[in-house]
């Protein structure tokens, strides 16, 4: 029968090293590198190997420790001033830095406990204050807008409208207004998502057929994904698209009208 040993959980290699230093009651500035490295490797051997990304972080440190251990066996290097370089110096500096933040995190935790006792208050602004809209001074609003400018705006709008008219179709004698609008479809899909939660793209189309409708609905779905209102997934290529309303997403935060200025 295999014995399972419950390992203390460490928050990463530095945390483990600090733990070992404390357990052995050794000085952080004079780490007995051989002992600590052996114990570190022991711990790593017993670790659950499933999480590779966690494991690799511990392995990097193991390699570093072994490198330091080797350097300790060699004659000491000296710096420009002739002082011996301790191969452990970098590691010690990192441990101290880490330990400092870890210590501060305990300090913060204490403060958090104390601060939790403060209660705040929801907004209770009276409705007559909330609803109040200051009287607008038209002079202020219009500012330096002139009639000439207003006329230019109108021309631009009319011109855009003329551009929108499909010249090929219009030569057949009828000018048809696009029957499906993206802004309308957006609102429809958002409402549908709110009501149904989870549904498929074909559910959406059941209500209305036609190629234009399909394209505009698809565009609406893409837009709503962009706004984080819905999420979509597809299990296989050319399969049906599954749509899920994102909980808590707020359609009101999206100003469709101004965002789709000029879209038809």
């Amino acid at each position, binding site marked *: 029968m295999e014995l399972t040993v419950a390992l203390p959980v460490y928050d990463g290699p530095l945390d483990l090293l600090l733990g070992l230093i404390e357990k052995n009651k050794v000085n952080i500035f004079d780490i007995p590198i051989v002992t600590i490295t052996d114990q570190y490797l022991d711990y790593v051997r017993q670790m659950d190997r499933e999480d590779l990304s966690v494991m690799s972080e511990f392995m990097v440190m193991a390699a570093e420790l072994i490198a330091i251990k080797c350097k300790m066996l060699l004659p000491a290097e000296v710096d420009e001033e002739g002082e011996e370089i301790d191969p452990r110096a970098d590691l010690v500096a990192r441990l101290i830095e880490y330990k400092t933040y870890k210590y501060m995190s305990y300090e913060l935790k204490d403060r958090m406990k104390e601060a939790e006792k403060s209660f705040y208050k929801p907004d209770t602004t009276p409705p007559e204050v909330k609803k109040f809209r200051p009287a607008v001074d*038209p002079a202020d609003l219009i500012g330096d807008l002139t009639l000439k400018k207003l006329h230019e705006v109108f021309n631009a709008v009319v011109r855009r409208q003329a551009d929108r008219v499909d010249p090929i179709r219009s030569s057949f004698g009828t000018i048809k207004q696009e029957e499906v609008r993206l802004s309308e479809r957006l609102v429809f899909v958002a409402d549908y998502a709110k009501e149904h939660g989870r549904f498929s793209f074909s559910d959406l189309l059941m209500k209305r057929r036609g190629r234009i409708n399909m394209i505009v609905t698809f565009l609406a779905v893409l837009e709503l994904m962009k706004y984080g209102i819905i999420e979509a997934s597809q299990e296989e290529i050319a399969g049906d698209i599954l749509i899920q309303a994102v909980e808590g997403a707020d359609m009101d935060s999206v100003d469709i009208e101004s965002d789709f200025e000029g879209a038809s």
Partner: protein
Amino acid sequence: MEDNKLIAAIEAMLFTTGRAIRIADMAKALEMPADAVSRGAEALARRCEEEDRGVRVIRLEDAYQMTTSREFYDILIRLETQPKKPTLTEALLETLSVVAYKQPVTKPEIERIRGVNSDHAVNRLIEYGLVRELGRAPLPGRPILFGTTEEFLRQFDVSSKDDLPEISPVRLADFQAEAESEAGVTVDV
């Protein structure tokens, strides 16, 4: 519980909920008899009044609530409305130009010209006093007709709608010609 502490505890409760709290509920939280709580709430109400604080405590049947002192409404309004200074956005400007030059005009017509839903823009312009309802069109569904206001005329210093610069038929023809040449076909309107 001594008086000052009881009053402070009631103040804390009324503040944090912001709504009316029944005396019985406060009594339960304070583990005190209801009449003592009632006296405490009255004492708090008196203090707020006497010291001319920014808040007041009012009694509502068997409950108390903390509210803002009314004399500060103006300040609150300035606090709440200051970030939203009204301006004529592009959408508003466009809509205004269509109403000005096409009046009387219905909302579907405005939307046909602009190509976008214009509910919001029209409502805003009405709120700002630049556009108004003129009546209803003798069309199916009797849609509302919109036009500009006197204020609009005043602001632009035009004495009548007929003084608005006209959009000439020539221009319209220009647009058409352009659209045609771009598409390389003839448009027959």
